[in-house]
């Protein structure tokens, strides 16, 4: 049997991966700016912009071409990271993850081009938004898998409180919520319910206009996300895992800010500032929940299901 590959901490590669993750979050913010300012079609051609590499950065071109430039930069970072990882990383899984990041960023670029070529059809725009979040998660996983915490961790403690599954569920819920938000944004239902915190003056609005159902589902989704993140925090607390408590607390703080930004988006009539911040903080919530999931599964040993069931039934299991 081949021994498992020994991971070695590579400080600069880890820092590079963290930088790539940070730039990806910034790129998501700039992508949000493109939608918030209605500049998605300000440059009608792709991959060139008005037939050039560098068009005059006026009006909506500033946002759309700026997004393309930032995306190109992140694509370059990802390419460097993938090649670097392929050459230096002993763990096959991490190498595969790096290639997956590269494949995702290329696919994302192509989707971005298609949104322009096909004049922003909802399906492609939503896919573009969702793949951005997926790519962000892949880069976070790369950054974490190269961190000293990941490499040095010895999962001695059993995850009796179930932090890992709770964090994984929260991550899934946040992803669905972001996808719902993307649908709402791209069908133009951001103001389908014009008031906040009530919905058309009631707890449940009349579903009398297109977009109200999607918008209301996004609001309900926010409460589900809040509950899922609180659950992670409580479990981390019960597990006495300070690092997980800190990550879950950050996630909770971001969710609270995010709900406030959602309200500000509605009350400001989708002003560019709160609307774009809402997109970026949404990605940050996802990234934090995802990091909590990765940390929980790395720092805590998976619970032995047989022992857990036996314990519940009051039966002693001997090995």
């Amino acid at each position: 049997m081949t021994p498992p590959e020994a991971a070695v901490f590579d400080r600069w590669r880890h820092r590079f991966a963290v930088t790539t993750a940070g730039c990806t979050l910034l790129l998501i913010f700039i992508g949000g700016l493109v939608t918030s300012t209605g500049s998605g079609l300000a440059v009608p051609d792709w991959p060139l912009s008005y037939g050039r590499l560098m068009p005059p950065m006026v009006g909506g071109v500033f946002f759309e071409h700026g997004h393309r430039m930032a995306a190109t930069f992140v694509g370059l970072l990802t390419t460097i990271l993938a090649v670097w990882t392929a050459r230096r990383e002993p763990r096959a899984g991490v190498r595969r993850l790096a290639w997956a990041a590269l494949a995702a960023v290329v696919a994302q670029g192509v989707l971005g081009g298609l949104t322009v070529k096909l004049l922003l059809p909802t399906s492609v725009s939503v896919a573009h938004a969702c793949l951005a979040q997926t790519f962000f998660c892949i880069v976070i996983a790369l950054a974490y898998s190269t961190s000293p915490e990941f490499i040095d961790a010895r999962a001695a403690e059993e995850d009796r409180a179930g932090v890992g599954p709770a964090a994984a569920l929260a991550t899934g819920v946040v992803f669905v919520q972001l996808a719902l938000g993307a649908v709402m944004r791209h069908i133009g239902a951001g103001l389908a319910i014009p008031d906040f915190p009530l919905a058309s003056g009631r707890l449940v609005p009349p579903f009398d206009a297109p977009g109200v159902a999607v918008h209301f589902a996004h609001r309900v989704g926010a409460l589900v996300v809040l509950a899922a993140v609180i659950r992670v925090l409580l479990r981390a607390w019960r597990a006495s895992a300070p690092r997980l408590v800190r990550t879950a607390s950050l996630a909770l703080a971001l969710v609270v800010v995010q709900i406030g930004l959602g309200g500000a988006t509605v009350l400001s009539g989708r002003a560019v500032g709160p609307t774009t911040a809402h997109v970026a903080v949404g990605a940050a919530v996802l990234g934090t929940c995802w990091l909590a999931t990765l940390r929980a599964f790395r720092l805590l040993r998976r619970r032995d299901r047989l022992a857990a069931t036996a314990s519940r039934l009051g039966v002693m299991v001997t090995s």
Partner: protein
Amino acid sequence: MSTRNRFAVLVLAAVATTVACGGGEKEETKAPPPAAGGAPAAPGAGAAAPAAPAGNATISGKITFTGTVPPAEKVKLSADPKCVEMHKEGMEKQPIKVKDGGLADVYVYVKGGLPPGNYPAPAEPAVIDQKGCNYTPHIVTLQVGQPLKIKNDDDTLHNIHPRPTINEEFNIGQPRKGMESTRTFTKKEIMFPVGCDVHPWMRAYISVADNPFYAVTKEDGTFEIKGLPAGDYEIEAYHEKLKTMSQKVSVKSGETTKVDFAFKG
């Protein structure tokens, strides 16, 4: 799922082949749909449909507005220094233009009652000009199959992006002064917006009719539609903000019939 979305999904499935990403501005001209004698067939009539009867009746009138005219909105031009230079004293947008009670920029057309037949589209193109970071005219009128010439008379770039719901949507860039493109609409569609995503304040409306009986009100709210055959018609007036009003009217050969509309704010 809309046709566009379905198409998008298909495209996604064949991504590699679809990314025929051209790049660069191209002059694109779509040929008008084939029709007898070079003119498009009127709706409901085949290519061999008879020519529509000629007439010499006229409808004229005035469209008025009563109520409070909303204040003009100041446009933030700072996103493009060249637009700022062209409007040193600023720019204001007033979608409800009233002069002496008359309402300008109302599209008036014969909505119903025309005898069936071919109403040949003029070969002369309708023109929309991007000038002074604005569109001229504000209401562009043309017939199905008639070419639309799109001009850029500004020393800055524009994209022109009509958003029809019946005709095919397109988005083309004109990065240099003096550029021209020609497009043709193949279906009747009244008052759909056209805009520039670079300069979000730029907005005009296009109306594509299946007959030549339409007009846009002048500054004083007056209009005139000539050459109608005698008959009973439904006339509709369409304003971008105030929406529509319509009325029935009988016209007689060689006579002018008055039709007035009164919009209220």
